[in-house]
């Protein structure tokens, strides 16, 4: 396929999809946007996770941390600032903490990065728990409510922004730089790429979008406490969704997040008692039998060589 026509085709279908989602509240029952909001949230988390972790193969398990940072920023600033500013602040705070984290784990290679980020979430959660009890004398916080349609459009805008930025990065030289870090970090450093700088910046950039989603979602959940905001399940869910969809391709994480969120909503409504059990089984099955994700499956059918394998 010609490159430009392929690009045009992709752009055309994506804009159709966005247009459909944007007009969704006009002809669907009012609960539909509510349900779609959570799908959009997972798309943001998964795409931003895959933005950094896909090509570089550094498995981050700190999605919940930066999501929670966004949520807490929203809870603290919600009454003092207008909503758009709150969202911007949430993502900026998350970005800054992402920069700091990236800077701290400079020396960590391979799997230790996953262990560190996993630990980071517990550290932040316990620290906030202690801070709230000792200094702020609360357990949780109430967040200023925003009506669900506004939240829906904010999430949609964030999805478009995240996907566009990821797309541009993947197309530009930065995408190649990230890939080269994943393939052979030392070789990349030897040919003059400032590996450290790109690792830190793009990790923080993915945190930026995760924090943004957190800041918006906090207003939907209305009440947050450290156990909700830094729930370790959210560290793993985007990884699973991205792997399920397939990390090598741009639309893999989007498809993965969409399908899995729908599936888990159905599981939750059908089998509320067995939901987490089934979720665990689903997790194991996907990891065992779909190592390249859905996109990998279609590629296998087309007999094209696999681009890259995800997972650290």
């Amino acid at each position, binding site marked *: 396929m010609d490159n430009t026509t392929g690009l045009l085709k992709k752009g055309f279908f994506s804009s159709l999809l966005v247009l459909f989602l944007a007009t969704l509240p006009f002809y669907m029952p009012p609960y539909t946007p509510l349900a779609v909001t959570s799908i959009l949230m997972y798309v943001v988390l998964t795409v931003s996770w895959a933005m950094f972790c896909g090509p570089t193969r550094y498995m981050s398990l700190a999605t919940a941390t930066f999501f929670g940072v966004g949520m807490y920023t929203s809870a603290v600033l919600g009454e003092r600032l207008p909503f758009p500013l709150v969202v911007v602040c949430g993502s900026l705070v998350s970005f800054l903490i992402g920069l700091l984290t990236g800077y701290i784990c400079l020396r960590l290679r391979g799997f230790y990065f996953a*262990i560190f980020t996993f*630990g980071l979430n517990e550290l932040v959660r316990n620290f906030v728990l202690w801070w709230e009890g000792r200094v702020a004398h609360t357990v949780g916080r109430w967040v200023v409510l925003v009506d669900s349609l506004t939240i829906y459009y904010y999430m949609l805008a964030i999805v478009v922004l995240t996907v566009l930025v990821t797309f541009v990065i993947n197309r530009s030289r930065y995408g190649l730089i990230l890939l080269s870090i994943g393939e052979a970090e030392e070789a990349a450093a030897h040919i003059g790429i400032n590996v450290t700088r790109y690792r830190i910046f793009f990790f923080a950039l993915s945190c930026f979008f995760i924090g943004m989603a957190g800041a918006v979602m906090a207003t939907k959940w209305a009440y947050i406490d450290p156990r909700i905001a830094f729930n370790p399940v959210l560290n*793993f869910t985007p990884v699973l969704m991205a792997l399920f969809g397939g990390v090598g391709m741009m639309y893999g994480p989007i498809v993965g997040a969409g399908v899995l969120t729908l599936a888990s909503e159905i599981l939750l409504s059908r089998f509320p*008692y067995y939901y987490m059990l089934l979720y*665990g089984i*689903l*997790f*194991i099955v996907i990891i065992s039998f779909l190592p390249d994700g859905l996109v990998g499956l279609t590629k296998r059918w087309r007999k094209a060589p696999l681009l890259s394998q995800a*997972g*650290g």
Partner: protein
Amino acid sequence: MSIKLVFDVAITGLIMGGIYALIAMGLNLQYGVARVLNVSHGEFVMVGAFITYFAHKLFGINPLLSLVLCGPLLFIIGLFMYRTLFQYLRRTSQSLDVFEGRSMLASFGALYVIQNIALLWWGPNVKAYSYLNYPIRFLGLTFEANRLAALLFTLVLILVFYLFVVYSKAGKAIRAAAQNEKSAQLMGINVPAVLGSCFALGSLLAGLAGSVISMMQEITPLIGFPYLIIAMIVLVLGGAGNILGSLLGGLILGSVTTIVMYVEPGLSLVVSYVIFALILLIRPEGVLGR
């Protein structure tokens, strides 16, 4: 500071340290040797605690004896899990790095499966039994008998395991496989069998630690996760693959968290994390090295 407090801190620190060491040595067998960062490790602690609880409640079996029941049972569960799930993943992964990532994610799924079976089966309520619940006077100080029993039990377990790792033939095979799989294979060690039994031994140690915990604390199906986190910290502290490093690391972390617990209870986990982060940053291969 009174002498009583010093003794209290020392004994609690030793008990916690011993429990941490048991759990962390288990995780180290699983990650350091078998290359599975088993996120469901804490759930084995929980299952061990529940087996001990039910053995005591239903059949009146002494918790100290449940080692005979709990150990083999968890060993079999662990072996089954490794043989079915992780061996399959290992066979289908192109590299060890990919296997590490996939096995960790799969074990996260296992965490949910085990925890939710426990919740559905045993319910979310807090359970506890009373065992040796009387004071002992010694040197003019009083101690609770069950804590002393737990301390002794843990120390004996650690000693036995230490002797096993250092002196037995199987222990040598485990250390050889941890250091270099290929060379171990060339020396005539059946590495796949060693990896499987290491994973199973890891669940056994977690289960025994759970037994000890059930003697002193109330248990619920949710107690496992914090122990996983602690085991991960100790794993990094002592170095992956260095099993005796985990023993030492567990004792150190147990003492440190106990001291912090007496000063500022809410911060004990935070302090262990700061230690963890510092070690990862300064010496990613662990303080004691591999």
